[in-house]
């Protein structure tokens, strides 16, 4: 049984931005990097990956360029734009706040109410 958690809606974009912020990546590389940095704790629907990449590119948060990959194969590399970097910062902040709030809510005990 797969013990990995499903992605919350809206978090894929954030994860992609984060993954790309660590260095330009092609599509499959983004997938691997997300798995890697999440400690293989998240399950990414591959079907959602490319539409998300195209959407982010259309919103001008990512830019793409064709280049040669590690084993000299042609690949399309995505990198963050300035707008993307700002977006990542904002969303990461929001996310931290949300996590803190949820965590606090979940750790509440009857005595504290």
């Amino acid at each position, binding site marked *: 049984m797969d013990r990995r958690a499903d992605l919350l809606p809206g978090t894929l974009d954030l994860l992609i931005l984060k993954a790309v912020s660590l260095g330009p990546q*092609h*599509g*499959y590389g983004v997938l691997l990097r997300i798995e890697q940095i999440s400690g293989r704790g998240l399950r990414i629907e*591959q*079907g959602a990956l*490319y*539409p*998300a990449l*195209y*959407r982010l*590119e*259309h919103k001008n948060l990512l830019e793409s360029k*064709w280049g040669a990959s590690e084993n000299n*194969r*042609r*690949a*399309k590399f995505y990198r963050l734009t300035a707008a993307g970097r700002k977006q990542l910062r904002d969303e990461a902040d929001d996310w931290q706040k949300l996590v803190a709030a949820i965590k606090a809510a979940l750790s509440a005990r009857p005595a504290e109410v």
Partner: protein
Amino acid sequence: MFARAHRIWRALTRRTTWENELEEELRSHVERRVEDLVRAGVARDESVRRARMELGGRESYKEQCREAHGLRWPDEVRQDLWYAARTLRRSLGFTVVAALSLALGIGANTVVFSVIRALVLKPLPVPSPNELYFIQASNYPSLSFPNYRDIRDRNTTFSGFVAYRMAPMGLDTGGGAYRIWGYLATGNYFDVLDVLPSKGRFFHAEDDRQPNASPYAVLSYACWQNRFASDPNIVGRTIHINSLPYTVLGVAPAGFRGTELFYVPEIWVPMMMQPQIEGHSWLDRRGDSNSWVIGRVKPGMTVQQAESNLNALATVLAKEFPESNEGLRLSLARPGLVGNMGRAPAEALLGGVMILAALVLVAACANLASLAGARAADRYREIAIRLSIGAGRARILRQLLTESILLSLIGGAAGCGLAVVFLRLLSAWRAPLDFPLQVEVTPDGRVFAFALFVSLVTGVLFSIAPARQVWDANPNEALKGMPSGMGKRRRWAFRDFLLTAQVALCCVLVTGCFVSLRGLARALATPTGFQGRGVSVIGFDLALVRYNQEDGQSFQRHALEAVAQLPGVTDAAYASSIPLSLDHSSTTVFPEGAVDFRDFKGIGANYYDVSPGYFHTMGTRLVAGREFTWHDDARAQKVAIVNETFARKVAGARDAVGRRFLYGRDEPPIEIVGVVEDGRYVTLAEDPTPVLFRPAPQSYNATTVLAVRSSLPEGLMAAEMRRTIAALDTRLPVYGVGSLMQMLGEAFLPARAATIALSAFGLLAVMLAVTGIYGLAAYSVSRRVREIGIRIAVGAQPWHVLQFVLGRTSLLLSIGLCVGLALSLAASQLLSSIVYQASSRDPLVLLAAALAMVLIGLGAACAPARRALSIDPLRALRHE
């Protein structure tokens, strides 16, 4: 052209690159995944399968990517367009009928709109045309020249006033004289209008000071091109007008056609040359209102200010010259159509025609809506399938809308094409008149924008019906084999309403057509006061070749005797002009014993100077008294023959022979020697007008129309007369040669034009109604083939079958017919503005219209009815 093709090409190739890159990206993703899986120990085949599965459905995935990238919208529009084009091609019959009826509807509207724009909306083609106003006196379009001069010099609100007059002239370019039409115009004409010459110079105020002292001419561009072969040395060249030398000063710009929108002048001559051009002078006669006047108001001046300034002046002038100016009121009108005298009827006529054209378009829309509705019902299954496999309703609606708009744009384009062709013909058309009547209608951007707008509105309108069906569609029922609408059958469908409306509109238009036909028949049967058949005429103006009165009179007599000798001629006479032509003269007369001789106290009467034998030749009945004889000459008692209305109004008795009347205070009395029947003189629709005829030997008129009655064909006679006149004087230009009936074309022109327009609309409406009724009836039969089959199988009689399939259609037709006839009755006012003496309250017209509609209905429903009757129950039941 090249740049555009290049751009399209680049967009397309880029698009392909984009798709290729997407494909490559996905492929390399799968490859890498497969490698990883293989490395992790999965068998190669299994890895490939799993990698592909993980990525998901390739096509929908790509679609999502495209959408994410903002490419979906143009893609879908393109798909819609392709799909629409395919659908339209598949049902070619529908497409052709629809596009054609739209083309006709839109074409008709475009033509009418263009004509309205050219005649009513468009200002004169000069700088700041909004400052120009036509001055009319008490709703009469002309002023006397002394009044013009006083108003010009004494007003405070206008920056300039021009007076002008249309005038025929005998132009001799070296190879014989032609009669051409031009303007006599005051010297400031071009300066006030602010037009610049294309060659040479125009005349100015200082060129127009003393009578007969400024023999200058300005040619129109077309005149310079056609009559002088674009002579580069035209400026300064001497030409002969009415046998006198004139110097050409310059050539007007190509687009300038003077100050009337319906007239094409060829030449402008300074007003002071009027005595020479017209042979007699009215420049100093305050009682002769012969000049048209246009003024340019000073910038910033309102119409009210200008008008009140003019009327203050008119009051002063009335006080100073009560004899001719008593009661003078001035008002402003837009220039171009001879003030409100021409503008009001033109606006009424064109407005009426525009309403009819709009009705045709509405009928076309209703027709298309019902056809498209019927088609949508047939496509119900297709739509239901598309809905059930996940197409959004909005997407399908958009698809239908695309189809309608594509269709209406095709129709609109075709309509524009038709309109352009028709307008070309109209602009090139010359009225069969001895007068350069021409309306320049050039379709421009605004007209095409109008057509485009109309097409789009039409497209949206007629996609409403199918759109409603899509909205109500229920895929489950449709796929279970239930025909559309069966689930919740309304008693009255929108379609039914459309058909009724269409039939009603068609009925109105058909009624209009019949009304106009009857109007024309009436116009043709109007008693004109003469028997025109068998009479041939020829016109010439002796002033154009400078005959004096004595020579002129003897020439007229000689010409008369010469044509009377021609074989086949039974009667011959001449007159200064003939009734119902464009040449009218009027004068004011006073009953004998009058003491007040101010103009407005007198009675206005048209007059003609006619030779002895005129009434006999024209076939005008003499009611009392005698015809003129050659003894009624200058030495004899001044006499006149009058018509019955004149006799009643001036002499106060029907039998007025022996009574007298006066032209003015110190004029000798005129004795009435004969009374002739009333006729029509200016238009066929006029009220009885007092008319007097003067003996030509007593009152010479250089303008001459020779008329002969003969048993020979009129064309032949006309040619003979032309030869005879040419033999008498080779220099004399003749015009208006032909049969009298031909020359009367102008009088019948409005009735003819109305009949042609209304018949065209009627025909369009009939075509639309036939397709509409046929379409609906055929549809109703085809939808119920099975049901009819069952009925026939269980023994229904043909009559029952017909009642069953067509009952509803005929009910709708009857309702439409009644509504249409009622509407026609209500539209009587509208029709009478277009057609002379016409009323839709004519039982014959209503009967004919009703009959025509019934025939149309029967004809259109005939084929579907036969199909219903020929249904074979066995085959029908196996159907589906």
